[in-house]
């Protein structure tokens, strides 16, 4: 018996076909991966399942019974639970309060907390989802918050669990932990639908994979018979080429950090005695679990934070003025970590965001904005970098994540920078966009730039880097020659182990 069955689902938004005749099923105790690029129709399909949208045609059955369309309550009652990519938790409440939120009738004056405790305890034990019910959600780590989301679904007796990009926010260790839990749940008879575009994980966790492209179901394979290249091709529709690594003769040092220390005032982790030299025509990958000092290091290199002590030499000269505008002007390309909140101002037009970093240097007599020139430049870059938008005057918030990243790359790389600080440039992007970003970085290197690539994705770091450094607890190890390292060694260093013989580093 099929647990969940989508039959011929069609959904149009105006002229856009979001779902085109999609039929798929989920068996009991099965993990099904739903693979597709951003905009392939995954989210629309899930929104139909949850009653946020009503499909134009087709229907959904749960255990053979038709699901009332357009009713979130019906979906929840049918035992469907969803863990969203962006958590839907009330930060100021405790774990327990979050879990029982919405499960009790409003007319009840006080919560039946004792019962809830018991049920929660049973669930935690059964699936190995350990959590302190009285902890405030705001104090939890990202991995723990996700655990709360999963428990929340299970608490409502979900037998079908939908996970939307669950690993996007997790560290490698947390991902392993999550997968363990998912396996437990499947063994207990639950069915899981896993939405992702990370090929490695999909291959690891799922039993079966269906691929969506442009709203159509384009393929279905048993995981055993699938491999990365095949999936990538099915997803994008043509062969995807990750850029080929090429070692180049390195040039002069572009960035030199000597004994840089940072005492963070805002509670984030500081830096102690960072020494790092980045040359022309090389990419240094900086690996590390998020929150180990990457933020501080990136802030310094982007000119946003003054180090507490030590020296930052940029193109051979000691940097005195920590001014992002000065850095941009002297040839630093800055790719921020949070592209939509830090990299652009959503409410402003594209042309204004293209201007952002060079606002004053490009203004007439430093004061009047040269709009005509700025718009022309924006239009040129939109074409050159194939940014999908409604033109230079469109509001930037309408762009997808991949296109916002293209905007940022176009803005910073079109000036032929000599140093690039790229903070997680490919995070959360789909295959096509990742490949684009990586090609751009490699191209810049070939043209002579030195690059510091901060990433949590070790595959990416190994694919692109000439040398690899690891940051842990505000201290740097390396950089080491990438060819002399294994992923395992880097993983160990990320958790604080020293590399053997690291004193004779490259």
């Amino acid at each position: 018996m099929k647990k969940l069955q989508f039959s011929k689902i069609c959904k149009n938004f105006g002229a856009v076909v979001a779902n085109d005749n999609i039929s798929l099923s989920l068996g009991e105790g099965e993990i099904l991966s739903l693979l597709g690029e951003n905009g392939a129709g995954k989210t629309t399909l899930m929104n139909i399942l949850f009653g946020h949208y009503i499909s134009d045609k087709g229907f959904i059955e749960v255990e053979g019974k038709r699901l009332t369309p357009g009713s979130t309550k019906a979906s929840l009652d049918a035992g469907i639970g969803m863990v969203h990519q962006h958590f839907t938790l009330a930060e100021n409440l405790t774990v327990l309060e979050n879990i029982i939120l919405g499960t009790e009738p409003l007319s009840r004056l006080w919560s039946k907390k004792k019962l809830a405790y018991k049920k929660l305890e049973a669930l935690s034990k059964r699936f190995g989802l350990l959590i302190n019910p009285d902890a405030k959600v705001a104090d939890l780590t990202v991995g723990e918050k996700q655990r709360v989301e999963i428990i929340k679904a299970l608490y409502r007796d979900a037998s079908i669990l939908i996970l939307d990009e669950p690993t996007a926010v997790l560290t490698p260790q947390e991902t392993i932990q999550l997968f363990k839990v998912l396996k437990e749940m499947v063994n207990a008879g639950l069915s899981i639908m896993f939405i992702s575009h990370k090929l490695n994980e999909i291959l690891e966790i799922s039993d079966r994979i269906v691929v969506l492209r442009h709203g159509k179901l384009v393929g279905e394979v048993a995981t055993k018979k699938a491999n990365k290249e095949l999936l990538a091709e099915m997803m994008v529709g043509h062969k995807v080429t990750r850029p080929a690594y090429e070692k180049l003769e390195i040039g002069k040092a572009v960035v030199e950090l000597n004994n840089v220390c940072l005492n963070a005032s805002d509670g984030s982790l500081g830096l102690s005695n960072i020494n790092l030299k980045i040359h022309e025509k090389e990419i240094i990958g900086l690996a590390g679990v998020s929150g180990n000092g990457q933020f501080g290091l990136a802030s310094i290199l982007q000119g946003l934070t003054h180090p507490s002590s030590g020296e930052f030499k940029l193109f051979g000269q000691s940097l005195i003025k920590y001014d992002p505008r000065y850095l941009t002007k002297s040839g630093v390309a800055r790719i921020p970590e949070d592209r939509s909140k830090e990299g652009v101002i959503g409410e402003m037009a594209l042309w204004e965001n293209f201007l952002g970093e060079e606002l004053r240097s490009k203004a007439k007599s430093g004061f009047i904005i040269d709009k005509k020139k700025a718009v022309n430049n924006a239009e040129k870059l939109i074409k050159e970098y194939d940014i999908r938008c409604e033109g230079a005057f469109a509001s930037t918030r309408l762009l997808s994540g991949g296109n916002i990243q293209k905007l940022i790359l176009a803005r910073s790389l079109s000036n032929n920078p000599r140093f690039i600080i790229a903070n997680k440039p490919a995070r959360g992007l789909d295959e096509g966009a990742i490949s684009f970003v990586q090609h751009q970085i490699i191209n810049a290197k070939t043209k002579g730039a030195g690059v510091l690539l901060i990433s949590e994705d070790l595959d990416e770091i190994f694919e692109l880097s000439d040398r690899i450094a690891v940051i842990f607890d505000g201290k740097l190890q390396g950089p080491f020659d990438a060819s002399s390292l294994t992923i395992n060694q880097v993983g160990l260093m990320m958790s604080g182990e020293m590399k053997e013989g690291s004193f004779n580093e490259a």
Partner: protein
Amino acid sequence: MRLKTRRNTPVWLIAALPILSILVAFIFGAFFIIWAGESPITAYIALINGALGSSFAITESLTRAIPLIFTGLAAAVAFRAKFWNIGAEGQLYCGAMAATLVGTGMIDLPSIIMIPVLFIAGALAGCLILLLPVFLKTHMKVDEVVTTLLLNFIILLFVNMLLEGPWKDPMAMGWPQAARIIDNGVLPTIVAKSRLHFGIIIALVMSIIMWAILRFTVWGYEIRAVGYNQQASTFYGISINKSVLMVALFSGGLAGMAGVSEVTGLKGYLTLTLSPGFGYTGIAVAMLAQLHPIGVIVSAIFLASIYVGADAMSRTVDIPNYIADILVAISLLSVLVGSMLARFRIVWGK
């Protein structure tokens, strides 16, 4: 029923929004008039006649609009950067005090110099008093809503003290008012037999200057950027503290000019009744204008007409002029609801 973000907001909608809001306000206002036992139609005719029915009425409405343009601009420019200056009322009195200090005999220059000197002095006074909340905000993270609001009362009490004490004009037969501004400092009227004075020209020029600054200059970009997104602004190299300071100087200066304009153009001397809350009404003006400096002119004239018209209405029809406050409040609420509808679309059903 749910809300969907609009991809594009049609221009006609943005333009129609204030007009629709005003209509809504008049419709709701009608209920209160009926409640007061009068016919809304007669009442509104009396109101419109009182505001626009004669050339005298029109000049009165425009005269009333002058301080509102200044305080409306003060709020608009500050709110653009999300600097919530609620203290325009106090800054207005600071401007008026500066004009009184300089303009009642300290110096005597030809009008063409004296008037600009008074306006600059008033603007500076408005700026200076705002420095305190700015400092508290940028260095100690004290919320400026509280500090600017509370400063209003301190300043009003201070003015009160001056008018009852050292600045009390002995010629005023016991009224708490300061000495008159000297003749060279008084703004000329620009329409004969009316109270409409040269301040309206200054207000219009300031609106255009503010519009140009916001639209065409680096400062305008920075003010808007800081208002939208501080994190990205910092990334672009815009100093948040400097921008807040700049915005505060504009805002305080404009509010101070409102005080100068009232003292030198209308009253001729400083009293405690100089402003019936122009500083607060300026916030309504700015919101109704969607923070647009040119829109401020229109919305200031509109609100001024309502107030002037309601005064006239209360004289002819037996309805208290508080109806003006109701109309302004409802149109403000409608604009807030309407501006949400401009960003989002209501989708009925699923």
